[in-house]
């Protein structure tokens, strides 16, 4: 037991102290934060740009409509630069004014010009020409301002007090959209899908990264021949167990750090978004019960044991990293197979595919946590999934330990599948 601890300690400390671990652990949350914050920030950028304020209004109405429109476009701002310039034009001079404005836009003095006429006041037509004509938010802002101004002048015509028209026409509507699919409303369901995806992706990545870490670690011990010295001091099963547990603990440490910092970042998201000047959309974190958390942890640990012991077996059977990459292909296919089903299972977490995949040990460590995140899983299915996964782990460990103890001492050419099958039958 003391020796197992020695092995675990070495595997853990050597990795946690390495600069790659520090970099990955630090960059992980930055990456997650980027994923969460940048899209929201970009979304906020897709509000109207500042360019809209550099529009020239060519007012041929002779009613001061342009001036009011200008104020409506500028909105609440008191910044003089943000109030579009208005040129009062006699209708006959309009085409000349338009050519002047066109030149100004071409020489980039102005962004565009808006022509308002009698027909605009009547609510029939208005024309805009400019470099930003394809910007939907800019055009939307101008259109809204036009409507507001038209409405205000109509209200005045029927005798409503000038001071009240603004109040009546100003509609700061916050328009949220929600998607309905065959599964029902999106909304808060979206958060749990994202959560499920995050869990699945995290497990998937961790198994791949740390599975390969174990494989490299075994190859290093084998090729540097340290393995033989260590094997003369501890049984190979202890060595294998120490490796799986030590590297697993590193993976767990990283995940805990990632999840904690990501959680904190999410909590701090609103202040951060406010700093960036972006409006915040409340982002409900799904509540996780202690029981669910323990189950997630169990799936992580079991899934990790299942795959990493097999990775260790592959590492022990080869003589170099290059050989390993090839020899690990079947394992990679198994994991990618599970990864491919992340999305289908998210979309249909109660279907037959999801049910079957969460029973098979190859896929269950990734698929079952996803299902747990997005839907309720019947206790019987849960028990079955964990039960089969434990059996899978025992089988994987049995197989791996037998390949491992023979493979570590076999140098030279890469063994064939048949030779490896024979190793399994060796006594020791």
């Amino acid at each position, binding site marked *: 037991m*003391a*020796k197992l601890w*020695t*092995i675990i300690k*070495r595997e853990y400390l*050597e990795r946690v102290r*390495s600069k790659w671990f520090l970099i990955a652990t630090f960059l992980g949350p930055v990456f997650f934060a980027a994923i969460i914050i940048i899209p929201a920030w970009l979304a906020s950028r897709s509000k109207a740009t500042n360019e809209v304020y550099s529009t020239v209004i060519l007012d041929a109405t002779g009613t001061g409509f342009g001036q009011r429109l200008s104020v409506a476009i500028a909105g609440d701002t008191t910044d003089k630069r943000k109030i579009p310039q208005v040129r009062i034009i006699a209708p006959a001079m309009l085409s000349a004014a338009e050519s002047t404005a066109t030149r100004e836009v071409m020489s980039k003095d102005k962004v565009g010009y808006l022509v308002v006429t009698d027909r605009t006041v009547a609510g029939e037509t208005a024309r805009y020409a400019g470099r930003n004509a394809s910007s939907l938010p800019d055009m939307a802002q101008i259109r809204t301002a036009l409507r507001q101004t038209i409405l205000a002048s109509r209200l005045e015509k029927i005798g409503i007090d000038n001071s009240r028209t603004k109040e009546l026409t100003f509609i700061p509507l916050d328009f949220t959209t929600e998607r309905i699919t065959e599964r029902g409303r999106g909304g808060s369901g979206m958060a749990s899908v994202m959560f499920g995806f995050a869990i699945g992706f995290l497990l998937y990545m961790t198994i791949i990264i740390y599975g390969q870490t174990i494989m490299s670690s075994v190859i*290093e*011990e084998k*090729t*540097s*021949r*340290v393995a*033989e*010295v*260590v*094997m*003369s*001091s*501890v049984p*190979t099963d202890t060595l294998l167990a120490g490796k799986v547990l030590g590297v697993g603990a590193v993976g767990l440490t990283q995940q805990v750090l990632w999840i904690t910092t990501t959680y904190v970042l999410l909590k701090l998201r609103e202040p951060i978004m406010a700093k960036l000047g972006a409006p915040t959309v409340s982002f409900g974190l799904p509540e996780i019960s202690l029981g669910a958390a323990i189950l997630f942890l169990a799936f992580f640990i079991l899934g990790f044991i299942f795959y990493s012991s097999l990775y260790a077996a592959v590492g022990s059977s080869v003589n170099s990293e290059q050989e390993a990459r090839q020899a690990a292909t079947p394992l990679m296919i198994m994991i990618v197979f599970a990864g491919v089903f992340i999305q289908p299972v998210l979309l249909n977490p109660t279907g037959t595919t999801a049910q079957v995949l969460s029973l098979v040990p190859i896929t269950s460590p990734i698929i079952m946590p996803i299902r747990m995140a997005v839907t309720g899983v019947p206790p019987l299915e849960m028990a079955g999934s964990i039960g089969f996964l434990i059996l899978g782990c025992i089988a994987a460990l049995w197989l791996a330990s037998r390949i491992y103890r023979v493979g570590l*001492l076999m140098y030279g050419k890469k063994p064939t599948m048949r*030779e490896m099958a*024979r190793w399994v039958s*060796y*006594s*020791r």
Partner: protein
Amino acid sequence: MTDNAIDIEGVTKRYAGHTAVRDLTLRVPAGSVYGLLGPNGAGKTTTIRMILNIIAPDTGTIRLFGRPSSDPKITERLGYLPEERGLYRKMKVKDVLKFLAELKGVRGKEAERRIDEWMERLSLKTPEKDWGLAKVDELSRGMQQKVQFIGTLLHDPDLVILDEPFSGLDPVNAQALKDTVVDLKRRGRTVIFSTHLMDNAERLCDSVCIIARGEKVLDGAVTTVKEQHGKRNIALALDGGGMEGIASILRDTSLVRRADDSNRFFEIEMAPGADPQVLLRRVIESGASIQRFEMIQPSLHQIFLEKVSRAGPAGEAAAWAHVEEGMSGHG
């Protein structure tokens, strides 16, 4: 309780295609320096791995200091230097040694004290430079070998097993290793080494066992072994000139049964009934300038060649090839 450090009784280990060790019985007296000799592929490493309980024999038993080799307590009394050496390259030297010490049950302050002591003894720690703080990678090959010795001996094992310890050693480290072996022997430890370098074995070992193709060919105290093979051998050394005549004399099977030709030095086994005086006369007549002509006991090298070449059909050529390879490689 027994006085033997190792009792191997009828041990056989088979692999898919071949039998690595066949019905091997060996006793290594406690406190002796014991040589396990044999050509490459003879089963030395397999035997050592079985002693260390890295692999288990198919049949037979191995007892160390009277206990089964699978007894976990026993492993802490063993020190092992494998043929192919290596350490964790990215680890600090001190951390590697601490790790190895902990695996043998030496922990904490005690481990650190011993590491410092050994590092100083092998001048890896001097007032100017403490290599213990460097990574294994940064050490020269010679220094890494020293670190590996330390790792083998740190827990002061009762039984030290060295697999081909001289391979790849520079002369300075080779001498340090010999000194260490002698020192271990004085302190009553048992040292086993496997080698195909007969000169080293002859000088260092109290007893030897020669194995070939997985089977024991011969074993016993070095003096006894040599006496038992006390045929009349001649050591002949020449001073350069007159070599041409010698070759034909050595080919005369009525006079010479076997000759080991090392250019200027010859170890000659006389043919049955041949008279060494006749040989001496013939050599003088050939005009060679003789530096030494002495009747000697056969060297282990000679015995080894004879025994190994008899052990199987592939015969002498194979044995020669192995010995030559060993000599040119590391001698």
